């Protein structure tokens, strides 16, 4: 049994049947991290003591013959934007370089209550702002499939940790594509649930109306198990929806025959790499072969998604990042003489270039005289983009697209051109704006061996259909 390659069910039942122990699984993960992570850079902080305590608790339950919870003994990684009690949480920023949260994020607490062993915190773009992980204040992450390339972002560390078998599953966050795009670049499964499906309590806010927590995993079933664990109403987040959580795992095997799949020409236009196009088109053919009906749909406002996103996300970010004032928990510049100097110098030294750029853009878009032209305009276009999906979903059950226009690019390739970097999110931002769920699953490789991702988008709160289609494709591929 290769301990670092197990699925959730295989790991849990091996521990339950005493074929291995949670401690052994945890040790195997740390050994793998020790061996691989110096060159990959997926982890920012490890919490071995906390992990060992949890593993020991699981092993004692197993020894007593008690039935183990669904994630018992499963080594997991948590993106460093989710608060973990007693474990440093930086959001990839120097401004939170020494922050130790006094409480757990709800999603993390639910994973842990289900028996998961938290190995540590994964690297990410600063405040989840980026598409390559190069905006981490600590170090970039290298794609495990090709170390000269980026893992995608912003959940690049989480995707790399899962792709390199350092963790069985990981939690990431998605504001404009930050779970699905790195999943696509690293060749793993990444699921963004519907906005409101998973509590954001304890997630360090980037853009509150767009932030989602979701899983990165090696199989669709593992992603479904994690979603079932973390989903559902949480009184600590008033935007979390009070809806029953279906059993996503039980629904996976339902046939997909007869489901209507939308294909939108707006997602196959200029800028889409040929190899990616071919891989996605053959994936669509495969789904057709499974009995799905392919239906052309139109999402006419798609070309306006990136500008809309960068106004709304930066406006919300400029407000959310105002809290880093050097007083309560963030970095304070040394030797400051007045309050205003303290604010300015602490923020100047604490934030990286991209965070500052977004704070500036967002502040500009919200400032007197520009609010209507930029922020309000973007909110109205957000309505139009959402209506596009509503219209399409009257005709189809799900929509299939490429996750990203290209496979993983090289480190440094786009880092001097913010706009080119923003365009890497062109197929993912629309779902964040509309609040609909989306998954990226591997659908082949380029000639150079780089993974390509297929994106499946679903109706609000219909993760079940998205997962079912993804599972059917995964099993057939």
């Amino acid at each position, binding site marked *: 049994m290769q301990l670092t390659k197990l699925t959730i069910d295989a790991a849990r039942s091996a521990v339950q049947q005493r074929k291995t122990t949670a401690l052994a699984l945890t040790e195997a993960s740390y050994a793998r991290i020790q061996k691989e992570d110096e060159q990959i850079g997926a982890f920012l902080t490890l919490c071995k003591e906390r992990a060992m305590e949890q593993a020991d608790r699981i092993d004692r339950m197993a020894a007593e013959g008690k039935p183990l919870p669904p994630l018992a003994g499963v080594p997991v990684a948590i993106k460093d934007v989710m608060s973990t009690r007693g474990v440093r949480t930086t959001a990839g920023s120097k401004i939170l370089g020494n922050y130790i949260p*006094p*409480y757990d994020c709800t999603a993390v607490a639910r994973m842990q209550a289900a028996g998961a062993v938290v190995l540590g915190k994964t690297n990410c773009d600063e405040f989840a702002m980026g598409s390559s992980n190069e905006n981490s204040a600590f170090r970039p992450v290298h794609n495990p499939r090709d170390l000269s390339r980026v893992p995608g972002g912003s959940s690049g560390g989480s995707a790399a940790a899962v792709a390199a078998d350092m963790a069985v599953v990981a939690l990431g966050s998605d504001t404009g594509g930050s779970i699905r795009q790195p999943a696509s670049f690293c060749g793993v499964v990444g699921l963004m649930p519907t906005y*409101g499906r998973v509590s954001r309590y304890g997630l360090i806010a980037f853009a509150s109306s767009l932030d989602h927590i979701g899983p990165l995993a090696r199989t669709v079933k593992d992603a479904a198990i994690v979603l079932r664990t973390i989903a559902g109403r949480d009184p600590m987040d008033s935007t979390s929806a009070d809806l029953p959580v279906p059993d996503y795992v039980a629904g996976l095997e339902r046939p997909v025959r007869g489901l209507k799949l939308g294909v939108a020409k707006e997602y196959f236009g200029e800028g889409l790499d040929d190899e990616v196009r071919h891989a996605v088109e053959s994936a669509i053919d495969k789904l057709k072969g499974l009995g799905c009906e392919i239906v052309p749909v139109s999402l006419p406002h798609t070309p306006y998604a990136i500008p809309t996103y960068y106004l709304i996300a930066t406006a919300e970010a400029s407000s959310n990042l105002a809290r880093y004032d050097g007083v309560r928990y963030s970095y*304070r510049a040394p030797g400051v*003489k007045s309050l205003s100097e*303290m604010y300015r110098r602490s923020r100047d030294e604490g934030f990286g270039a991209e965070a*500052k750029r977004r704070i500036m853009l967002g502040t*500009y878009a919200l400032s007197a005289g520009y609010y209507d032209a930029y922020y309000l305009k973007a909110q109205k276009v957000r309505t139009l983009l959402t209506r596009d999906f509503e219209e399409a979903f009257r005709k189809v059950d799900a929509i299939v697209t490429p996750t990203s226009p290209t496979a993983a690019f090289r480190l440094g390739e786009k880092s001097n051109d913010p706009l080119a970097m923003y365009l890497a999110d062109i197929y993912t931002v629309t779902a964040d704006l509309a609040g609909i769920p989306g998954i990226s699953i591997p659908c082949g490789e380029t000639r150079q061996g780089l993974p390509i991702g297929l994106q499946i988008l679903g109706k609000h709160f219909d993760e079940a259909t998205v997962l079912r289609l993804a599972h059917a494709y995964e099993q057939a591929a």
Partner: protein
Amino acid sequence: MKVTEKDVAYVADLANLELSAEERAGMLRDLNSILDYIERLGELDTENVEPMAQVSDRYGVDESKQGSERFAYASREDVPEGLRKSLSQESALENAPDADGTFFRVPKVIER
């Protein structure tokens, strides 16, 4: 050029950022390039379109209910301890760059 050097200075001031001369020049270039791209939103007529601030604006979970009724689940009774106990003073001060055990300490507030 939509954004001028003066705008950059004004916005940096609003955002409590100082920015070096080099950063300001970069910001001027980047903001103009991004705003140029954003201009394309002007092509759309949004005269009679409602703004969308939250996903739940459109998707309150129970569509049979009207207005704020749809989000009744989001409110709760106002109880003194809330949903979790407040942080202890010690715990609340633990991450502060400068504290005296009772208060956060900051440099002089009133300048003269």
